[in-house]
């Protein structure tokens, strides 16, 4: 259940992102999740639901986009896409992959409800410069 520690870190990043803004609630949280992280979506939703309780993100939807694994063979340098159970380089036959993609969890955006009713475009503009 490593989803719990991921949920805790996610909540920390959300709090950091909304700090200093007049946010009533967070409606949606978008993130990309590398499949090497072995995140079970339902488990992350449950864990996040628990962690977000009593915060502006309580009840927020998680929009999860999964990212495939990509690797670079340390033996011959070629780039390839490992599968769930094979990290074999198709060129040289070694299983010595450096994982270059599919190993991160990135918070990409938050859709929020504001308290002061400022327009969406204004705030998008502001967020890009903050």
């Amino acid at each position, binding site marked *: *259940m*490593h989803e*719990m*520690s*991921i949920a805790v*870190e*996610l909540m*920390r*990043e959300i709090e*950091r*992102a*909304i700090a200093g*803004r007049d*946010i009533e609630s967070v409606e949606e949280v978008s*993130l990309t999740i590398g499949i*090497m*992280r*072995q995140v079970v979506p339902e488990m992350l939703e449950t864990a996040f639901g628990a962690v977000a309780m009593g915060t502006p993100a309580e009840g927020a939807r998680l929009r999860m986009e999964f990212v495939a694994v990509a690797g670079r063979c*340390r033996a011959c340098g070629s780039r390839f896409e490992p599968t*769930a*159970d*094979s*990290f*074999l380089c198709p060129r040289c036959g*070694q*299983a*010595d*992959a450096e*994982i270059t993609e599919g*190993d*991160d*969890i*990135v*918070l*990409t*955006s*938050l*859709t*929020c*409800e*504001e308290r002061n009713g*400022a327009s*969406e475009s204004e*705030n*998008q503009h502001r*967020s*890009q410069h903050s």
Partner: protein
Amino acid sequence: MKISIVRNILEVNESAARENRERLDRAGVVAVNITSAPGSGKTSLLEATVPGLSLEGMCAVIVGDLQTSRDAERIAVLGVESVQINTEGGCHLTASQVSAALDRLDLDGLSFIFIENIGNMVCPAGFDLGEHARVAMLSVPEGDDKIGKYPTLFQPADVIVLNKTDLIGVLDYDLNRVTDDLGRVNTRAPFLRMSVKTGEGIEAWLAWLRGLKV
């Protein structure tokens, strides 16, 4: 209102891991993170390692356990310092927990720190603790299909230890299945067959550890 962000949410762990590694480097201590399922023999391996390399007083053990201090008590008998991290249900150690454990240790004069992770084949895989080398261990009674079933534990490992090889004949264990799976997952790490009980493979393990100090 949409707030666009690009934040790696594992950055907190990753930066704590980097700090741990730098701190250990400055002190000249090599840290080894030992991962496996519960009951593979992580503590037994340390019980063979400390006298095997004459590390009494020269190494420390950071031991993660869901509950109880049983592993830490076994370590204390070896004459090495240990710090217990009781995760109270948490299924893996984090770099911050290891950082707090390092605060409690006097790193001067230590050659090695062994980090005995929580027994779990999924969760510890994705969390760098700031170690210099990672051990992925499995044991014969767990079955010969584990590398294929849990490739993310074995893929990043620097050495793979198969323990309890004295039971291979008893359990009709298919060693070829293990080496076939390993051939698809990790051909970089040495594969050490070991029985902590009979002593098979211990010398190769100790030699591998000595190699980390060079």
